[in-house]
């Protein structure tokens, strides 16, 4: 065995980790090599001395002092844990609230009334686009004969060309409106039938709730029910038609449901976006035609021309009014959902009385809260889906930072 090997083995030998062969070789080497023997003896002496160093006793008050510190630390830890959990709970609530709010925004942007102005703006913009292209496309030559005092036949040609142009511009308008992704126009209608212990109380509660939420009762009626065989009075029944802001449709349905025993409930959604855009486009085209006819009327020189143009103008104005009325009707049904409520008063034991007491209000609020929570969760999921790209970037940065910090720590 060489000296290098022997020096490397000293520690293993001292710690009884050498195998028999190495041990024999090592012992033979140190018997012959004075330098390695001295090294071995020295290390043996050092380790032996170190091994024999006395164990210090603990300072007298070490344990009591440490216990006090631990108790204090435990109290602090519990306090900070409470604060931490409270903060986490607050954050969770905040996130859910934000989610719910985002969902409302999302919902309103797609069908709610508050977003209508923005929707109208986008439609108007597309209309303006159409107007510009239509006016650009309007062949001035078609009007020139009239400007030059052309005959009525010329008008007929001009009118047909104008109509053809209008058709083109109409179809291009409808297309561009679709292309521009106009927000959906959705009509929501609900039907709910409930049995209550007091018709008057239930109908009053519905009216109050509706008015408090910015809606109105469109129509209501009530009847006295009699048993046809015994001719005895059974109670009142009736219908109430409620118009409520579309955004509050679900809440209102939920509220009415809690007023008695639910017998029947249905909801329907009708998407009228295409019809709405079509009508709007037709209106725009008719308005342009009206302008052109007015121009022609101003330039008309003989009576027969004037009579013909006026006749057409009257038709166009009538169409415009009709389209405007239709659009107003659409806006009305889109902004305000309709809920038809059928209420029947029954004194049967199985009928749950109108839910006005605390317990039922609590149940309603509990359900409402659960709905909000779910809605919040849905909102968060939608938000995450919408923001997936920035979230992914932030996640990558975070992972890289953590890895970098860890590697730096390890180097230290």
């Amino acid at each position, binding site marked *: 065995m060489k000296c290098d090997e022997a020096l490397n083995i000293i520690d293993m030998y001292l710690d009884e980790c050498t195998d028999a062969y190495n041990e024999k070789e090592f012992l033979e080497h140190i018997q012959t090599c004075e330098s390695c023997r001295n090294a071995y003896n020295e290390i043996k002496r050092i380790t032996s001395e170190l091994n024999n160093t006395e*164990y210090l006793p603990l300072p007298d008050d070490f344990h009591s002092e440490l216990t006090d510190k631990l108790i204090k630390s435990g109290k602090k830890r519990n306090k900070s844990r409470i604060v931490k959990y409270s903060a986490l709970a607050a954050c969770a609530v905040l996130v859910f609230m934000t989610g719910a709010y985002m969902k409302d925004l999302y919902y309103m942007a797609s069908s709610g009334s508050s977003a209508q102005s923005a929707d109208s703006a986008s439609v108007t913009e597309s209309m303006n686009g159409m107007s510009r292209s239509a006016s650009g496309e309007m062949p001035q030559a078609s009007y020139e004969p009239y400007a030059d005092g052309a005959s009525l036949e010329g008008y007929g040609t001009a009118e047909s060309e104008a109509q053809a142009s209008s058709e083109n511009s109409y179809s291009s308008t409808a297309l561009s409106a679709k292309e521009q992704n106009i927000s959906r126009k959705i009509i929501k209608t609900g039907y709910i039938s409930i049995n209550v212990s007091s018709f008057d109380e239930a109908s009053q509660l519905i009216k109050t709730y509706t008015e408090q939420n910015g809606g109105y009762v469109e129509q209501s009626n009530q009847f006295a029910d009699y048993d046809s065989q015994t001719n005895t009075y059974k109670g009142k029944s009736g219908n109430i038609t409620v118009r409520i802001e579309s955004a509050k449709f679900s809440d209102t349905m939920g509220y009415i449901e809690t007023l008695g025993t639910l017998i029947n409930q249905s909801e329907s959604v009708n998407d009228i976006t295409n019809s709405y855009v079509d009508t709007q486009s037709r209106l725009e085209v008719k308005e342009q035609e009206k302008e052109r006819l007015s121009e022609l009327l101003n330039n008309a020189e003989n009576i027969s021309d004037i009579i013909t143009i006026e006749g057409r103008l009257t038709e166009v104005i009538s169409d415009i009014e009709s389209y405007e009325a239709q659009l107003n009707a659409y806006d009305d049904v889109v902004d305000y959902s309709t809920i038809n409520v059928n209420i029947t008063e029954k004194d049967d034991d199985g009928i749950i009385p109108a839910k006005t007491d605390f317990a039922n209000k609590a149940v309603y609020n509990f359900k409402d809260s659960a709905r909000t929570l779910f809605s919040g969760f849905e909102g968060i999921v939608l938000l995450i889906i919408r923001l997936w790209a920035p979230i992914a970037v932030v996640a990558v940065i975070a992972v890289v930072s953590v890895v970098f910090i860890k590697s730096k720590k390890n180097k230290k």
Partner: protein
Amino acid sequence: MISSVNSGLIKKARRGDGRAFSMLIENHERFVFNVVYRITGNAEDARDVSQEAFIKAFKNFESYDERAAFSTWLYRIAVNTAIDFVRRRKKENSISFEDYIVDENNQNSDSGIEEKVISKEGVKSIISAVNMLDDEFKTVIVLRDMEGMDYKEISDITGLPLGTVKSRLSRARGKLRQIIEKNDIKSETEGRSRA
């Protein structure tokens, strides 16, 4: 691993009961105090640092996995805390700690315990030499040669691979020998010049 007797204490300690944790560590206090003392080289510091280590362990008790040995987990925290302390002290203090130990005039009035330990001249010079080692070498020397732990235990406590523990221990002993030789030569020279 912790005995079933202590499982109740563990639960309480995890919930933030300082007294329960104090009972749990009672049997380890002296050992931890001594390991820390040997790394820091000063009884006063050892007292503060070992208490700091216990509090750190208590605060992080949730991270302790009951399948592992409690003592190993605790000693690892103690060793790391002591090494951190020594590094911090070196940065803060330009005077080396080794001088503190070697120079008797600088010794604390409370260090009667230390005097007991380093009463013998030979042991004193070895302890001084240990304190002159780098932290990484000092730790393995303390754990192996002063506390008598085996390689596996040292590997668990320091988080180093077994092979690294062996090689580091070998190098540490070599360095220790060199320092002692140097000190011996130095003291001989000083003795002659005085004479």
